[in-house]
């Protein structure tokens, strides 16, 4: 998609890395359901959502690499960076369960929370002053809507299902809820991006997000968790204890065989 090599300001590159890394790391988490889904259709659904996110991540990381002007490709950014260089939100790196076993309710609750944000985010990014980012957004918003629909339907089925599925859905929601605070905590980088017309602050999407979530929770007979003061810091490169393991798995092949292709 031949872009000229012009070094963009650091905030521009970082703003896109936050989006690209969040897509990539969630894709990696969801791909862990491949072959382990609770039923065949859902195994396929989760990996399809993952594939969409990989596609978005590839476009975003390629773009970030071009803007950075250091000659780094999408693969260099995905496979050759260490943990503190990743800018994804902490929420997406958390495991697919809260205990020793994976729990589909956790993945569904996270997909609901993330896609309820992604839809208005991509929608706003269609108007970005960065035309290439706008083009990526125009495609991604279509995919995010499908992800939101998938997650919402399952959240309702779980919440308004059996006593066990209800309890697990509520506990997944309670577990993930504090990690949304990272989105609403606007920092200097985001303010610079807003100023440059690059895109919105996530905090400005909070009421839209809340409406989407509340509509689903009402039908799911689930309780909206109370807000807490905890703020995670993945977007600053300070990650949870789970991130290192995830990267080790994701990067081991590329690091062991640098430059390998097939």
């Amino acid at each position: 998609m031949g872009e000229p090599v012009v070094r963009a300001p650091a905030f521009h590159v970082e703003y896109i890395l936050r989006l690209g890394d969040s897509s990539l790391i969630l894709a990696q988490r969801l791909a862990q359901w491949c072959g382990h889904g609770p039923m065949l259709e859902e195994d396929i659904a989760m990996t399809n959502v993952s594939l969409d996110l990989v596609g978005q991540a590839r476009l975003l990381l390629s773009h970030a690499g071009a803007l950075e002007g250091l000659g780094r490709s999408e693969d260099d950014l995905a496979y050759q960076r260490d943990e503190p260089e990743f800018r994804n939100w902490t929420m997406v790196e958390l495991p697919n369960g809260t205990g020793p076993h994976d729990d589909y309710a956790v993945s569904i609750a996270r997909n609901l929370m993330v896609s309820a944000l992604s839809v208005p985010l991509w929608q706003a990014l269609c108007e970005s002053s960065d035309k290439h980012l706008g083009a990526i957004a125009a495609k991604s918003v279509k995919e995010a809507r499908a992800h939101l629909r998938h997650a919402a339907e399952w959240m309702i089925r779980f919440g308004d299902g059996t006593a066990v599925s209800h309890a697990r859905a509520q506990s997944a929601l309670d577990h993930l809820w504090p990690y949304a605070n990272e989105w609403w905590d606007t920092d200097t980088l985001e303010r610079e991006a807003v100023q440059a017309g690059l895109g919105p602050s996530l905090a400005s999407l909070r009421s839209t997000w809340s409406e989407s979530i509340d509509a689903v929770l009402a039908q799911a007979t689930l309780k909206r968790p109370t807000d807490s003061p905890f703020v995670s810091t993945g977007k600053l490169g300070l990650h949870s204890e789970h991130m290192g393991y995830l990267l080790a798995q994701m990067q081991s092949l590329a690091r062991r065989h640098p430059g390998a292709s097939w």
Partner: protein
Amino acid sequence: MVSVSDDPVLEQARVLAGNVPDPEIPVVTLQDLGILRSVHREGEHIVVMLTPTYTGCPATEVIREDVQRTLAHAGVSDVQVRLTLSPPWSSDWISPHGRQKLREYGIAPPACGADADQHAGALASGSVLRFMPREALTGPACPRCDSIRIERISQYGSTPCKALYRCLACREPFDYFKPY
């Protein structure tokens, strides 16, 4: 840009590229799917512009190679295949001929008007649909018996672009090419 009619090589390249089959659904061509955006000259090169369907569609790379190979095989050299994201591909761009071929192949073609945000998510309208999919109200129809008495089995199917449905009249499962 030279107009196609004045340039037989360009015309040939356009036809060849347009006739390359989709690697996942070989019954339809790039032309049918609406992913061939343009074929034009830039200096010595012939530039083939394609637009990807889903961002993560693994067929995109294969399509690029297939176009390159097909043109090289026909002796059209100096070809560059480029991808363009904008304007974003829509399933509305599938030609009537392409839709017919999908149906005959056993894949229900997508409902039209995907661009009009009809699938903006049930959330926007405040109603999350539960066991009856939204498409049930407007399409698809069973590609075998044309019945509209259908049910959705899964929103995601064998490729990113398809969902899995079942016909309640003839009981056959079928793929539905999702509106995008």
